[in-house]
């Protein structure tokens, strides 16, 4: 094992993800603007004119795939960014400030964690009359920030007791500056990994919602393509070109992002490189990170906040 593969794995997974992104960004140059235009009949098989055939409305599937990947990636990145920002801000404030603020913020976080995300996703999407791409991303972010907030809180409160923070405080730095320059850098590696996971789960959440019939209105995404393929009975009529491309692309993106996350884990945590052990499940990581923080606080008391 000896984890020599850790760097190649990072480069491969990052490279593959960039390739998918390039496909979504540069694809329109090659396919033109045939989106939403009928170019053939019902489920025409792949041909020179339509590389991946046509769907149940006679639209070109390759064009749908390019724009669908783009929509899915945008939703994933926006939702991931919003969720990570909410989680980091709340977690930092709670972990650094401590006391009543921490209890209040973590109370909200724990309640948000307890209620299953799919329930909130369904209720909010049903209540939205028109679901734009950004609205979808925000709905998804609303359900996914609590994990990040909780983990960032645990890490921030363990960083809080370090001595360099006392130095910063004594030299008169403002709380905002301390958080930005003295606490945040310690959490960057974790935040990067959390962001990657958030992006991947947001892409899958969008696909799941679309399959339930709650996808973005007036646009194509990978999930919407699957929804059309299922509703249009493409699986049962054997029109594989309608459902195989979005299925494979979704799986591919999810797997790549997971590999990217786990390779980042190896890059950032030197301990993982030496032995064969990988980071355990998120829950066990949390308790490991959380436990020393609790000890430190009870022993030293809260340093003058």
């Amino acid at each position, binding site marked *: 094992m000896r984890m020599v593969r850790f760097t190649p794995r990072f480069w491969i997974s990052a490279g593959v993800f960039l390739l998918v992104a390039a496909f979504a960004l540069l694809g329109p140059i090659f396919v033109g603007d045939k989106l939403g235009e009928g170019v053939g009949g019902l489920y025409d098989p792949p041909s020179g004119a339509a590389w991946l055939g046509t769907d149940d409305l006679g639209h070109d599937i390759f064009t749908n795939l390019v724009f669908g990947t783009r929509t899915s990636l945008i939703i994933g990145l926006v939702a991931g960014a919003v969720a990570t920002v909410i989680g980091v801000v709340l977690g930092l404030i709670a972990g650094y400030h401590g006391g009543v603020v921490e209890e209040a913020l973590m109370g909200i976080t724990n309640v948000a964690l307890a209620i299953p995300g799919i329930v909130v996703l369904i209720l909010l999407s049903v209540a939205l009359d028109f679901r734009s791409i950004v609205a979808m991303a925000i709905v998804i972010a609303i359900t996914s920030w609590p994990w990040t907030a909780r983990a960032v809180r645990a890490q921030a409160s363990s960083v809080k007791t370090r001595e360099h923070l006392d130095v910063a405080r004594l030299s008169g730095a403002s709380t905002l500056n301390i958080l930005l320059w003295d606490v945040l850098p310690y959490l960057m590696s974790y935040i990067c990994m959390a962001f990657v996971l958030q992006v991947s789960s947001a892409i899958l959440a969008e696909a799941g919602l679309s399959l339930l019939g709650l996808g973005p209105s007036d646009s194509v995404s990978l999930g919407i393509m699957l929804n059309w393929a299922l509703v249009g009975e493409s699986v049962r009529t054997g029109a594989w070109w309608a459902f195989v491309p979005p299925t*494979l692309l979704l799986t591919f993106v999810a797997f790549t992002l997971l590999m990217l996350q786990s390779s980042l884990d190896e890059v950032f945590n030197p301990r993982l490189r030496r032995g064969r052990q990988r980071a355990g499940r998120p829950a066990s990581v949390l308790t490991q990170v959380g436990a020393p923080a609790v000890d430190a606080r009870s022993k030293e008391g809260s340093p003058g906040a």
Partner: protein
Amino acid sequence: MRLRKYLVGKALWYVGALIVALVLNFLLPRLVPGNPVDAIVAQLGRSGAQAEQLKRIHEHYVAEFGLNQPMWAQFFTYVGNLLHFDLGTSFAQSPAKVGDLIAEALPWTLGLQLPAILIGWLVGNGLGALAAFKGGWFDRGAFLSSLFLSSMPYYCLAIILLYLFAVALRMLPPGGGYEPGLMPDWSLLFATDVLRHYWLPFFSLVIIFIGGQAVGMRSMAIYELNSDYVNYGRGLGLPDKRIVRYIFRNAMLPQVTGLALSIGTLVGGALITEIVFSYPGIGSLLFSAISQNDYPVIQAITLIIAIAVLASNFLVEIAYGFVDPRIRAARAGER
């Protein structure tokens, strides 16, 4: 004393979460632009119902939702109805009661999910532990394929299996819970037919679940293998069998938690599998309810999903409080 405080604290948290879930559910039809009752009556009107009948339907729904009362009173009406297990009347399949629709669909979902979760858990843990002990190429192969399966969206595998085995190879029926011509009864014929329709959705779930469990168990077992007590035990010359037993016990604890938590996702965990296979469970019911704007049904399903998850999480936390004094202390300090 400490235990009691822990239990009461946990109970309060979960009651709080339940109330938030109830409020969210309550607000849903009221957040929708326009009055849902007017919308549904207008829809019925287009399909040619009599004016008199429309008026009666309108009054029925207004009374059921308590729309002529202030918001807080509506909320108490809603909760009061729930306490009587009254989930309201379906919009789309009026006058069917939502409770009856759910009772019809729920056994299909539970019958599909419960065996898949249990078998997937057993096989996945065995595979993960084996990969950790054997190491080498077996480990790499098992780990990578498990990682791939666990990252794969479960409905993607469902679609691929459906196409391969039902359409391309024509080995199994392409969906539904049973053949359309059959009447559900307790005959052998019906049972074998149900089983034939069961395999594909079942395997599409169980394979994904095995992957996830194997990845978790493998990393737990490897973590334990590298720990000090294993080295010490080896130094003492303990037989491998004994060490393996220790490792397995320690690695199992989080896995048992995982099992309990996934039982909470029984209802909401495989909604899309049912849609892919047109399986007559909660997922298909939700899908048709969403496409027909049948708010009472949507509301009831999200409520059941929320209650199942909250209840299982609560039970796990309670069990932890009894089992592990360290957790009891740490959690009490954390909050």
